[in-house]
C-alpha cells in the first residue's frame, strides 16, 4: 500500500514537472527571447495553469499525511530556499493573471511581464535548490548546531544550485517544445526549433555539471548511478530519445515532439527516483528518512489511498478533457475567441 501511495506521489510530482514546469518554462522562455514568445506563451498557459499547479498541492498533502517526517524535516531545514520559491510563486501567479486580465496598457503590461519572467526564473531556481538540498545529504536534524550549519549549509552549495540551473533549462526546454505547437508562422517555428537545439545541448552540459558538482560537494552521485541498473536504463532511454527529438525538430512534428519531451522528463525524474529509492531525504548525522521509516500508520494510508484513487479517477479524465478542449484543438482551428475576448471589454 505504501508503494502505491508513493507511486501516486511520483506521478503527481512528474505531472507537476511536465505541466507546471512548462508554465515556469514559459516565463523563462520569454525572458530568454526578450518577450518574443509572450503572446504564444500566454495563450498556451492561461486556461490550464491553475490546474497544473494543483499537482504541487497534491504532492505536499501526500507528504504531510503519508510521510509526515519528510514534510516537517524538509520544511524546517530548507525553510529559506522554500520561502524564496514560495515568494516567487506568489509573484508569478499574480503577475501572469494581472497581465492577462488587466486593461491592455503598455506600462503596467511591461511591469507584469517582467515580474512574470523574473519570478518564473527565480522560483524554478529555488525549487531546484531545495531539491538539491534533499538529495545532497547535508541536512542535519541536530538543531543545537549553529544557524549556518542547519539552515544555510544544506542548500547553499554548488550541487544544489547546479540542480536549480538544470531545472531552469529543462523547464525552458519543455516550454519551448510545447510552444512550437502553438506557433503558426513558419519563420518563427524555425527560430524556436533552433532555440530548442541549443537547449538540448545546454541540458546535456548542465546534466554533466550536476554530477561534477555532486563530486565536489562530496556526494558520490555518479557511483550511486552506476550501481542502479534501473537508473542507467532510464538515462540511456532519455539519451536515445535525443536524436529522435533533434531530427523531428526540423520536420515540425509537434505532437510527437511533445510526447518525446514528456518521455525524456519522465526518464530524468525516474532516474533520480531510482537512485534515491527507498530514501526520501538524505540526512547528514542521522539515519536517512526512507519510505519505510517515515510512513504513516496503516489506517491513515488506507483512507488516504481511497481518497487519492477516487480523486485520480475523477481528475485525470477531467483534466484530459480540459487539454482536449484547449490544447489539441488549437492545432486545427485558430482560437477565434482569444482576440475577440480581449477587445470586448
Amino acid at each position, binding site marked *: 500500500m505504501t508503494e502505491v501511495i508513493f507511486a501516486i506521489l511520483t506521478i503527481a510530482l512528474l505531472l507537476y514537472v511536465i505541466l507546471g514546469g512548462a508554465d515556469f518554462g514559459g516565463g523563462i522562455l520569454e525572458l530568454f527571447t526578450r518577450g518574443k514568445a509572450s503572446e504564444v506563451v500566454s495563450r498556451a498557459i492561461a486556461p490550464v495553469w491553475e490546474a497544473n499547479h*494543483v499537482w504541487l498541492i497534491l504532492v505536499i498533502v501526500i507528504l504531510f499525511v503519508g510521510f509526515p517526517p519528510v514534510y516537517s524535516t524538509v520544511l524546517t531545514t530548507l525553510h529559506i530556499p522554500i520561502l524564496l520559491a514560495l515568494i516567487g510563486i506568489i509573484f508569478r501567479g499574480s503577475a501572469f493573471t494581472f497581465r492577462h486580465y488587466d*486593461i491592455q496598457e503598455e506600462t503596467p503590461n511591461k511591469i507584469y511581464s517582467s515580474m512574470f519572467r523574473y519570478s518564473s526564473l527565480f522560483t524554478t531556481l529555488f525549487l531546484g535548490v531545495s531539491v538539491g538540498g534533499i538529495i545532497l545529504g547535508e541536512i542535519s536534524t541536530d538543531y543545537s548546531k549553529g544557524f549556518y550549519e542547519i539552515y544555510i549549509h544544506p542548500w547553499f552549495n554548488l550541487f544544489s544550485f547546479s540542480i536549480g540551473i538544470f531545472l531552469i533549462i529543462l523547464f525552458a526546454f519543455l516550454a519551448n517544445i510545447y510552444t512550437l505547437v502553438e506557433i503558426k508562422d513558419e519563420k518563427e517555428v524555425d527560430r524556436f526549433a533552433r532555440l530548442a537545439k541549443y537547449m538540448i545541448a545546454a541540458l546535456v552540459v548542465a546534466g554533466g555539471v550536476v554530477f561534477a558538482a555532486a563530486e565536489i560537494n562530496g556526494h558520490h552521485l555518479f557511483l550511486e548511478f552506476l550501481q542502479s541498473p534501473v537508473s542507467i536504463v532510464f538515462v540511456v532511454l532519455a539519451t536515445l530519445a535525443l536524436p529522435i527529438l533533434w531530427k523531428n525538430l526540423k520536420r515540425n512534428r509537434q505532437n510527437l515532439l511533445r510526447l518525446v519531451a514528456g518521455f525524456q522528463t519522465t526518464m530524468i525524474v525516474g532516474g533520480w527516483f531510482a537512485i534515491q529509492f527507498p530514501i526520501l531525504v538524505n540526512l547528514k548525522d542521522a539515519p536517512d528518512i526512507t519510505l519505510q521509516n517515515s510512513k504513516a500508520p496503516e489506517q491513515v494510508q488506507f483512507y488516504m489511498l481511497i481518497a487519492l484513487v477516487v480523486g485520480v479517477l475523477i481528475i485525470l479524465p477531467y483534466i484530459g478533457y480540459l487539454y482536449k478542449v484547449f490544447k489539441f484543438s488549437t492545432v486545427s482551428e485558430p482560437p477565434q475567441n482569444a482576440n475577440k475576448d480581449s477587445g470586448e471589454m
Partner: protein
Amino acid sequence: MDEFMAARWQMGVSLGFHIIFACIGMVMPWFMFVSEWKWVKTNNPVYLDLAKAWAKGVAIFFAVGAVSGTVLSFELGMLWPTFMEHAGPIFGLPFSWEGTAFFVEAIALGLWLYGWGRLSKKVHLYTGLVVGIAGVMSGVFVISANAWMNAPAGFDWVNGQAENIDPVAAMFNRAWFHQTHHMTIAAFSATGFAVAGVHALLYMKTKYDIHARAIKIALAFAAVAAILQPLSGDHAAKMVAKLQPAKLAAFESHFETTTRAPLVIGGIPDVEERKLNHAIKIPGALSFLAQGDFNAEVQGLEEFPRDEWPPVMFTHFSFQLMVAIGMFLALLGVIFLIGTFKYKHWLTKKWWLILLVIATPLGYLAVEAGWMVTEVGRQPWIIYGIMKTRDSLTPMPGIQYTFYVIAAIYLMLTFIVIWLFSRQIKMLHLKYRSND
C-alpha cells in the same frame, strides 16, 4: 516581537489574506452561474455581460487565492513542524479530499473562463455549477480539518504520540458540522453583500440596468444566508459551550461561574480585575443560549488555569464585532425579502442603496473577526487540550523577518488587486457609455 508572536502573526496574516479570496472563489461562481442561466433563459445580453464582467474579477481573485493557498500548505510546516508531524496523518484525510475538490474547481474554472464559444451553451452553463459545487466542497473539507484542531478526535494520545489513528473519526469530529455550516453561510453572506454594495454604489452613480440586476442576484443569496446565519451561530455557540467552555467564557468575558448567566453586549473586559465594564447585560440569556435553560450554569474563566486562558480582550471584541455585524446583515436580509415580496419600491430608494454601500466591507470584517474568534479563542492550544501552540514552533530563528516579508507582499498585493478591480469597473462603464 518574539519569534513565537511573529510566527502567529505570519500565520494570521496569511490566513486572513487567503480567507477573503477563498470566499470570493467559492461564492462568485454561483452568481456567475445564475447570471448565465438567466441569459440562456431570457436571452437578455445584459446577463451575459454581467457574467463575463464578474468572471474577469473572479479570475484575478481566484488566482491570488490559489497562490496564497499554496503558500499556506507550506507555511503550516515551515512555522509549526511539530504540530504537522503529529497532526498530519490524523487530520489529513479532509485535505486529501480537498485536493480533489480544488482540482475539479480549477479545471472547471479554466473551462468556464476560456470556454466561451468552445463549449456548447449548455455544457458551459453547467461547468459554472461544477465550479460552485467543487468550491463549496473544497471549503467544507478545509474547515473540517480546522474543526479537528478545536475538537480533536480519532486518536489516543499516549506519551506525546498519537496512537490508534482513525482518520474518519478525525474528519467528522464534533466541531466539523457547526464550523462548516457557519463558515459556508458566512462566505455567501459576506460575498453577496460585498458584491451588492459595490454595484449599489455604481448604480447610484450611473443608473445602469446591469448594476440593478447584479444587486438582485447577489442579494438573493446574501439575504437568505444572512437570515440563516444567527441560527447557525446559535448552534455553533452551543457546541463551543460544550467543547471549549473556556473559549465561550472568553467570548463573553464571563469570569465567574454562575447560574442564570447574563448575555453581555459590548463592554470592556478588565482581565486583571476579572471584570467586564460598561456592558449591557441580559440576565439569564447566556445560560439560555449556551444550554437552552435560563437557569443553567455557565462555566467562567476562573475554572481554568490562568495560563490556559485565551487572550480575553481580543477574543471578546472579535466576538462582539462578529455578532453585531451578523445581526445588522440579517436585518438587511429581512428588509430585502420584504421589499422583494411586498414593497418593491423600497429597493430602488436611496436609503436602501446607501445601506447596501455601508454593508460592503462588513461581511468580510465579520468573517475576519469570526476567524479570530475561532483561532485566537483556541489559544494557547494548537490542538485543543493536547498540544500547545508554543511547543510546535519551528526551531528556526528569525521568523520576525519572514513575517515582515510576507506581510509586505500581501499588503502590496491587496492594493494591486483593489486597483485592478477599479480598472475593471472603468472598462465595463466605458463599454456601457458607448452603448448609450
